[in-house]
């Protein structure tokens, strides 16, 4: 005989010895239907917005990538894979992909490393730290175009702050606008400066939610500061690091305003042109919206692949 204590209190009791059910029968199936309806109602607005403003344009963009659409023309003729074949065969593709990789890797790596460093520093009890935190975060909320204009004065080859500082220590300033390598360096530094506040604030939030007792225990056990950072703190920050690596990667690849304002993709045509700038250049300057759609689609596939790899990598790390 089953003891009444082994039956969960919210389970209906049947069989010998159980008291007869009182009141109406339980309405589990109708409750579930209501839950599904409620979930659908709550999800619907966002789902509609996603479909209309993200996935429909995405599909439309893929369709356009197989056409020769001139952006001012009402007609788009199908051209099969011609745009894709052209992209893979063109000389400037190599330069644009290289620029994109350099810019993205540098901005993701450096802004995350600096953001973590600043978060560690400003997590300490320091005088005026709230003011400094605000100062570090502020550039993130300023528009990229405004920052691009401001940094033109920093890097101006005749009157810029950088030139002035270098001249004071006897170093000749490079021409950041006419030398491709330096131009890419300039837009990368500018974007890191803008984005630093974002990585900083996310890391700071993660640090404030960490388990201090683990660190204290490791310290009592005689672990060095470096060992505590590597073995105790970083594993706790892993989900945050993963989140940042995806979001910073996506935002870095989308940078357009700073490049457009500072260099218009130059010097020498594509010295600082990234994939997203190439989409703009082909679509609006060269009028080849079909080809621009091709570049956007290729970028989509690349980023999707990178994101999937990141998700799997993180998942594997978490399991191990």
């Amino acid at each position: 005989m089953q003891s009444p204590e082994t039956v969960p209190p919210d389970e209906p009791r049947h069989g010998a010895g159980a008291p007869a059910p009182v009141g109406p029968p339980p309405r589990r199936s109708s409750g579930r239907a209501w839950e599904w309806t409620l979930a659908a109602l709550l999800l619907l607005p966002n789902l509609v917005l996603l479909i209309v403003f993200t996935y429909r344009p995405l599909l439309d963009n893929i369709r356009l990538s197989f056409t020769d659409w001139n952006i001012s023309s009402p007609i788009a003729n199908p051209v099969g894979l011609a745009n894709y074949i052209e992209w893979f065969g063109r000389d400037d593709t190599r330069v644009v992909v290289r620029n994109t990789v350099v810019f993205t890797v540098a901005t993701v790596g450096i802004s995350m490393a600096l953001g973590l460093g600043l978060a560690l520093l400003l997590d300490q009890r320091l005088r005026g730290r709230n003011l400094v935190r605000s100062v570090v975060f502020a550039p993130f909320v300023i528009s990229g175009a405004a920052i691009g204009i401001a940094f033109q004065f920093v890097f101006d080859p005749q009157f810029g702050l950088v030139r002035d500082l270098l001249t004071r220590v006897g170093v000749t300033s490079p021409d950041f606008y006419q030398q491709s390598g330096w131009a890419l360096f300039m837009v990368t530094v500018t974007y890191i400066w803008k984005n630093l506040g974002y990585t900083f604030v996310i890391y700071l939030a993660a640090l404030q939610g960490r388990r201090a007792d683990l660190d204290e225990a490791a310290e009592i056990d005689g672990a060095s500061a470096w060992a505590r950072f590597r073995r105790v703190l970083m594993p706790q920050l892993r989900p945050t690091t993963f989140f940042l690596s995806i979001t910073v990667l996506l935002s870095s690849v989308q940078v357009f305003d700073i490049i457009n304002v500072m260099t218009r993709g130059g010097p020498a045509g594509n010295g600082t042109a990234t994939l997203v700038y190439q989409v703009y250049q082909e679509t609006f300057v060269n009028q080849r919206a079909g080809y621009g759609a091709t570049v956007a689609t290729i970028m989509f596939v690349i980023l999707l692949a990178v994101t999937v790899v990141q998700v799997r990598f993180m998942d594997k790390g978490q399991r191990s």
Partner: protein
Amino acid sequence: MNEFSRRGFLGLAGAAGVAGLSACAGTGTAPSSGAGGGSSNTIEFWSNHPGNSKPVEQQIIKAFEAANSGLRVKLVDAGKNYEEVAQKFNASLAGGQLPDVVVVSDVTWFNFALNKQLAPLDDLLSAAKIDTSDYVDALYNDYNLDEKHYALPFSRSTPLFYYNKDLWKAAGLEDRGPKDWDEFLTWAPKLKAAAGSDTIVMELPDGSNYLDWVFQNIVWGYGGAYSKEWTPTFSDPNTVKAGAYLQDLAKKGFLKLSKDPAPDFTAGIVGCSMMSTGSLGGVTKDAKFAVGTAFLPGDGNCPTGGAGVGIPASLSDERKKNALKFIEFLTNAQNTVTFTQATGYMPVRKSAVELPEEKAFLEKNPNAKTAIDQLPKTRSQDNVRVLLPGGGARIGKALDQIVQGQDVGTVFKALDAESQQVFDSQIKSKLGA
């Protein structure tokens, strides 16, 4: 559960992010049709306010509304430059509300006309009995495709040769611009010696900022061209000679490129430059030295530039009629004088220079007179720069490479091939269609 949530969330966020990113190239090809929305009594004027002209545009609009009761003009900020206006116009063609009057540059008008998105104005002009012979011929004919005109000149400019008179004096040179580019090469060492190490002899805009526009003067000066009609001629020996000249100036340290030479010239650290007449007002006002202006070197080698105003093809007849009425008012002799004096752009009417207020203005501003006097010597630009999609950017890129030291012949040969390919794939089949 926790693991699934994070993974699911990040996966979805990532997918939405990359999907949104890739949806940015274009969203559709809906042909514009019908009257394009809007009211026939309100004329929507899309402008980038060239030369900071918003106040003077508003002033002209106010006068138009006073003279035409029942018609209103809505001035719309359509971008910060001609390219942005074209982008906004392109977006409206895909289904949005169309403007009644839109600013189209020497580079952007052609693609709209070729794809039948701008109205040919000739019949409308005849019906409204507007005499087009008063428009400056070179400027009016810039918008000609298959014997039809698709815009009327508005904020038109040409480059001028700007020079620092004080430096010229210190170098022992006559107070004038060079007759040709060979003469300038003989002047350059004297200017360099007089200028000192901190001053640049000549600064021009780089390839991302219209070097391709002013360089036409050097090319034409050496007997070359970017193209003859639609045939690219970058490999022509005379065009190559001009490219080599540009490279030589840079190698010898006489030339530097920059995003915008105007601030450096105004600050007195640049001896001379070729810049738009639209820069004249700012340079003259801010420079602390005597500013000289001269015709571009050579005779009849000055390219036209700037923008006109057009009307979308799919507007109703009533709206087209009102739009043309406004364009005629905006560009009449009196208003082109008002506009030119406020901005430095060229008067687009022949009769404008005969008005007493313009005569008085030119007497007081001899540098502005240089631009007017140069006007009869202007020449329409080569097709592959202004009419071929992306032509200016393509040539600018090549010129940057040449200044950086790449072989002129090789760069120009590749440019010939690329330009020809763009013509074959994007223009050829549409011409005469």
